[in-house]
């Protein structure tokens, strides 16, 4: 039996805020592009929690807001509303200077186009040294060599991007992203332009960086090979997180993947489109609270007419 004092203490005690422990936090994140009165809502109240050291994949149809989310998380774009925090830094209230420091030391990222990640007239090593120079003004060649070695492209260090394969270029790009020891790596379809074998190599490099350096890694991808190999896959639909697939290894060594729908803080839930189509659900559904679940039924004819 709790005493009144206990209850009072519990009421007065600060409740941990939503996602306080998360390394990356998005709460009701909104990004609207607006010109001449025309609005494009790219993110419509997205929620996301990622823990430190996680390796996750974000999947979604084209135009679902994946890249916008990644641009926001990398500090290249500023959200319109909501809350976005990466490694303890609030992305909405950052000054331009903070944002620059954030891009220099907190995040590293990799684009889909291999050519876009590297300066074509610098060698691999110089490309890795570039962020260091930009950030601190001095180049740590030893670290650059270590990174290239870790990612398996040590032999390319003297080559220019034009002299490397696409996979090698992307691995050098990962090394560039890791140059200033960021806490988070964001990759926008890093294997999008590569064949499956090379994709495997590049993904392997990302996973190695994640495991060995403990860097939180977020990969936006269409590639099922990538999506199937991460611990958690987050689906985005219409600018909102719609589903999560968790993977764990079963006792017999097999991989178990379970897909969950995401329930946001306001209690909203997105039903998978094929579920809705199969049961011809439209506009409204009937919910019934059972003992251990909630039942969702299509509205019956009488309901529709009422």
């Amino acid at each position: 039996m709790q005493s009144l004092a206990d209850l009072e203490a519990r009421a007065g005690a600060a409740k941990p805020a939503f996602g306080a422990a998360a390394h990356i936090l998005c709460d009701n994140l909104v990004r609207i592009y607006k010109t001449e009165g025309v609005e494009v809502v790219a993110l419509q109240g997205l929620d996301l929690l990622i823990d430190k050291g996680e390796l996750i994949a974000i999947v979604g149809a084209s135009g679902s807001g994946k890249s916008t989310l990644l641009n926001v998380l990398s500090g290249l774009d500023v959200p319109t509303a909501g809350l976005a925090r990466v490694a303890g830094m609030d992305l909405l209230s950052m000054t331009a200077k903070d944002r620059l420091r954030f891009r220099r030391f907190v995040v590293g990222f990799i684009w889909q186009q291999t050519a876009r990640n590297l300066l074509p007239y610098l060698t691999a090593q110089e490309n890795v040294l570039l962020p260091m120079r930009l950030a601190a003004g001095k180049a740590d060649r030893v670290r650059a060599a270590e990174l290239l070695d870790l990612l398996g492209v040590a032999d390319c260090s003297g080559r220019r991007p034009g002299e490397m394969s696409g996979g090698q270029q992307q691995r050098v790009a990962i090394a560039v992203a890791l140059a200033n020891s960021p806490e988070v790596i964001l990759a926008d379809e890093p294997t999008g332009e590569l064949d499956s074998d090379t994709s495997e190599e590049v993904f392997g490099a990302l996973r190695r960086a994640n495991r060995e350096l403990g860097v939180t890694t977020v990969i936006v991808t269409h590639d099922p090979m990538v999506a199937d190999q991460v611990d958690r896959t987050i689906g985005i639909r219409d600018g909102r997180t719609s589903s999560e697939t968790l993977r764990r290894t079963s006792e017999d060594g097999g991989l178990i993947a379970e897909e969950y729908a995401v329930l946001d803080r306001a209690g909203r839930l997105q039903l998978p489109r094929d579920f809705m189509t199969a049961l011809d659900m439209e506009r409204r559904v009937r919910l019934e609270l059972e003992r251990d679940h909630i039942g969702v039924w299509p509205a019956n004819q009488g309901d529709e007419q009422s």
Partner: protein
Amino acid sequence: MIRLLAAHRGTAALLALLTLAGSLLLAGLPRALETSLDESAATTLRTSPPLTTALTVNLNGSYSFTPPKSIDEIARANESWRSSMPPTIRGVLDGVPRFGHVIEHKMQIGRHRYLLLGWANDMASRIRYVAGEAPGPGDGPKRLEISLPAKPAAEFGIKLGDTISFEGYQAVVTGIWEPLAPEDPYWSTYQNGRTEVVKTRPPLADEDDLQIFGLANGDALASGALRVLYSWTFQVNPAAVTARNARDVLDAVAEADRMVTSGPQTVSVTTGIPVQGGGSTLFTGLDRILTEFLDRLATTRALMVVLLGGFAVACLGTIALTVRLLGARMHGSLSLMRARGAALPKVTTVGGGVVALAVAPAALVGAALSLLVPGPSLPILLLGPVALAAAAIAYACGATAHTHRQPLNERRDDVVARRPSPRRIALEVLVVLLGAGGVQLLRSRGLGDDPFMMAVPALLTVAAALVALRVYPFPLRLLLRLAARRRDAAPYLGLAMAARAATGATLPVLTLLPALAICAYGAVTADGLATAQRLAAWQRVGAEVRVERSEGIPADLVERIRKTPGVDQVVPAAVGRTHAEVGWQGRDTAVVAVDLNAYRKLVAGSPLDIPAAPASGALVSSDMAAMASFDVTWPERLAVQPKGKIASLPGVDTTGLGLIVLPALPQHTNTLLISGDAEAVKAAMPAGTVIRTVDGTLTEITSVPLTSSLMTGLRVVTLALAAYALAAVAIMLVSGAAERSRALTLLHAIGLTRRQAKGMTVLEVGPVLVLAVLAGLALGLGLPTLLGKGIDLSAYAGLRFGDYPIDPVMPALLAGGVAVVALAGVYLGGSRAKSR
């Protein structure tokens, strides 16, 4: 930065080349022009009679309280005058002392015979005594010693030892001399008439007065009782007067004149001679010569300012286009740097630095090369290259900073393009208003030295470009509507791409239009100047060949000339002056007796317009036209009956005179107007005839250094503008190549033929090009009228714009040529898109 530059070396090289050529022209052309202006100043002074370009101080001894009484005193006065001249004048004098004195009135020594006595400081060294010796001081105040030039003395029958008496004086001839070098310009310039008998015919006299010069003893003449005029001549060194100090020299001449004539009278402590005032006057033609020169100088400078201003705009525009192209090429690298943590100043430094690495050395080399152009070193001329480089770097920094102000600068395809901001519209309106207002001011006030006025023509071209850009979408929309009805989709697609590219067309149009406008203006000016000079040559001569012989031309000679092979037509005329008995005092007029109808036939096809002959009577200038009849005495006494008005006749100087054109009077022929070969005429004419030809006169007009360098400058700038305009089109084409290539690749995939692709590309680029060419050409042709009196070329040809027709053929050919070459390039470029 260097590696980034190396990665884009092609574009950077183009940028460097454009900067180099621009710097070279902007610094070199004014330099070359300054040289020819200086040359022109020197030539103007050198070819003028030396005494008109000298400053001569005359002092009448009778009106002076303390006239110099010895050669020493005259020499000291020379120094005194010189040192009291304004410093600017002192700076341009040749430093040779020239002074002397003559008696105020010539002395009569016989019937119609006169003696002028004088002395000059520099005469003794230029003569040689053939008998006797130089005159001494004489025996008293009334007995003088003189020496005479040999030839006149012989003519007068005076020998060595003779005594000449006049007005109570007796002059003993102690020497007979002759000039060491009679052809020495000294004699004709400073001592004209000293070595020969001077003949003059006084009014109403029937016999000439003869005058001999006697060289007196300088001291004796100065200290004697004869009234003496002193003169000190300060010769200007032609090379010392340049285009830059001419204005100061002119001002200083006025100051010197004030000093000499009306300044307060002070007496030099050392010489006791008045250094200012006291019967002294300054004689010089320098002020008139310099004023004329300065007028011409102002026109040349004004024209060059307009052309170079236009060139600077075109050059800046083309360089800005190239900087933008380079910026687009570097965009990926700079975006990556910015995204990877480069601060905005860093990215701006890199973007601006690459451009600086390309343009700064190029501007330096251009400026250095311009030093090879002979000319004065004027630091201000380096301003052009410096400004060009600075503008390019500033534009690069500004554009980079603007593009990369946000780390992510991708354009989303699903967001519509921004409309122009009110601020931009306000700026455009301001430029247009400034251009229009500036032109109005320029028309009323002239170009002057006002920097705003100098910028007006360039500003006007920019304003016109802005207006053209605003108007451009309307005809394009109309074309689009027409194209949409056609079955062939390619024209519609091409025009649609042109409409999409309209926002990117701002800079190309802002470059092309001024370039073509000034190019057309340059061409029309060069052409107009040539026409005007030709017309002026015709007007000065009056016929292809003009023969004048003061002794008269007998009828048989006229016949002989008529039959000379190579001579087509001959019109005899009598040209002279008379005093028309009009009104109370009469009127001095020029008289021409010529068969006007034959004259008209002679000059048919030339720029001259000769009035038709009246059925009877004469044509007269308007001030005499009201008379029913009046008498003249030349070529013979006759009564003139005015039957029409005439203002002027080519080749006849009517300055300050009336004009009477009579029917031909063959017995008084002294002028022949000829069409045909001048050489043949020359061979047939006796000595003593003056032959003038249109070609010769035209050469005289065009060979003036100022004119020739102006024409060269005009042509160089016109060609350079055409080249920059072409470069601008090429850069515009290359800038849009990637996007065009993407669109064409897509369209090829759905069945676009290569031919259609070419057509589409032409239609995409064509409208902007045609707009710029047409608007530029129209503005260029309209500029002479718009600028009106602001830039008056009459100093070059004696004619104003408007006095002769503007020929649009040359500018149209030039602008059309640029457009055709550009479109041909576009057409060929269109086929290349497929292979990408």
